[in-house]
């Protein structure tokens, strides 16, 4: 499951580039749509190769996302060499540019940093999705065949969930880059998983760890004068190490 997030974070690349070709703009909304489509397509492809192609899940994830990412890299270098989309931006991102990249109203008045607004809207959507459909998401994840047997469509919820994962990935990669997004997708949740056995607390705790990583990482970067995204992920790694030690010592 966590590796599917990893896969999506890479395979949305061609979607972003294609969205850029079609609209000719760097508008976040179109990039989100392009990436969202590719994200869901990735999960389809992974499932398809796994079920119809009869290959293991990890192999099908590996084949799918490396192939799509490679396609994206070729598209970027070949067609979009002199635009804002470059490999560096996509792979590493730069959070320090977030306050400069403003969103304007039609009359030209700045509303605020683009990434902050896009991610806030997404946050509200995701909170609604997780809280309102908590039981559907948890039952289809834990026991898909039982969920199916009581009439809850496993496929629908799986693809909705994965759709949100890809939207989140795309909305965040501008700031922290595609690779470090994976760290934020997995490590706060993994740390929380070590400490609690209740899914509700795990979700809350994971969010808290994410916030601590972000804020702590910012100050760490300020102090060391280093990469902000790198520092944030370092902090999340330290949190994971602490959680792991706590659990080991408790036993």
């Amino acid at each position: 499951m966590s590796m599917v997030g990893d896969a999506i974070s890479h395979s949305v690349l061609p979607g972003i580039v294609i969205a850029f070709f079609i609209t000719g703009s760097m508008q976040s909304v179109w990039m989100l749509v392009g990436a969202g489509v590719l994200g869901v397509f990735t999960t389809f492809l992974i499932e398809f190769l796994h079920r119809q192609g009869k290959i293991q899940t990890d192999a099908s994830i590996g084949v799918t996302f490396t192939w799509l990412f490679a396609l994206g890299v070729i598209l970027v270098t070949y067609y979009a060499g002199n635009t804002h989309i470059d490999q560096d931006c996509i792979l590493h991102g730069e959070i320090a540019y977030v306050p400069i990249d403003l969103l304007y109203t039609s009359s030209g008045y700045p509303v605020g940093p683009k990434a902050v607004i896009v991610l806030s809207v997404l946050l509200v959507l995701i909170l609604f999705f997780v809280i309102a459909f908590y039981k559907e998401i948890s039952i289809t994840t834990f026991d898909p065949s039982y969920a199916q047997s009581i009439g809850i469509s496993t496929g629908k919820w799986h693809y909705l969930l994965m759709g949100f994962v890809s939207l989140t990935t795309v909305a965040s990669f501008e700031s922290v880059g595609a690779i470090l997004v994976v760290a934020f997708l997995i490590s706060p949740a993994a740390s929380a998983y070590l400490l609690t056995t209740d899914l509700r607390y795990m979700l809350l705790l994971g969010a808290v760890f994410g916030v601590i990583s972000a804020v702590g990482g910012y100050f760490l970067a300020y102090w060391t004068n280093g990469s902000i995204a790198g520092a944030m992920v370092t902090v999340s790694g330290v949190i994971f190490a602490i959680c792991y030690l706590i659990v080991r010592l408790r036993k």
Partner: protein
Amino acid sequence: MIIQSENPALEVHDLTVSYDKKPVLWGVDFTIPKGALCGVIGPNGAGKSTLIKAIMQLIDIDSGYIKLFDRELDAVRKKVSYVPQRESVDWDFPASVMDVVLMGRYANLGLFKSPRKADKEAALKALELVGMESFRKRQISQLSGGQQQRIFLARSLTQNADMYLLDEPFAGVDAATEKAIVEILKNLADEGKTIIVVHHNLQSVENYFDWVLLLNLRLIASGPTKKVFTPALLEETYGGKLTLLAEVSELVKKGEFKAREKH
């Protein structure tokens, strides 16, 4: 030998299912009476689990139809409960025993509703029935195989269904759990509910079930246990499978069967 029943709870007509163009069930055709406690018996790879999954529409079927209480599954879904194989889920999932048992109530809750007091009471009652009420706050990864199977059964019991389909409920469980589950299933059958169980152990078939399906790709027999659970039909079901034939001959030695007439 296929004995049909009048006014059946389950009717499977000419069912064929295949994986990768290889048939796993071929022309299976039978009926099961209301209130039967039915064992589905056959060697590994005979299509027993596939049959249950086909009935629950979890896999595509190639031909035939299935009717439950004379209706399509979608019309009677709330009256039918499915207990999947224990190994089919990840028991490290962060959930408590109560969380899992409450899932049985999700079908009736609908979107946007969270479990209410009545749902929690139903879940507690089901946990009491399977003897697990003191475990309700326990994390599911800390359960033994038998305990896992009990809460799977409890989850289904909260559905108050009229038909229960259990996929290998006795695989890898302790003797006490097996006995407790059989007791519950017998009570349900006495209440007129129809129970269908995928089962492996030939020794216990006669004690547990009043109806038996013998399956090996094709349906070998279906009918009351006394009529169809015979050495001849068992031999036909298990064919050349030596280990299982040995099991049968053990039964014969024990005198539970008359010596085989053929040969």
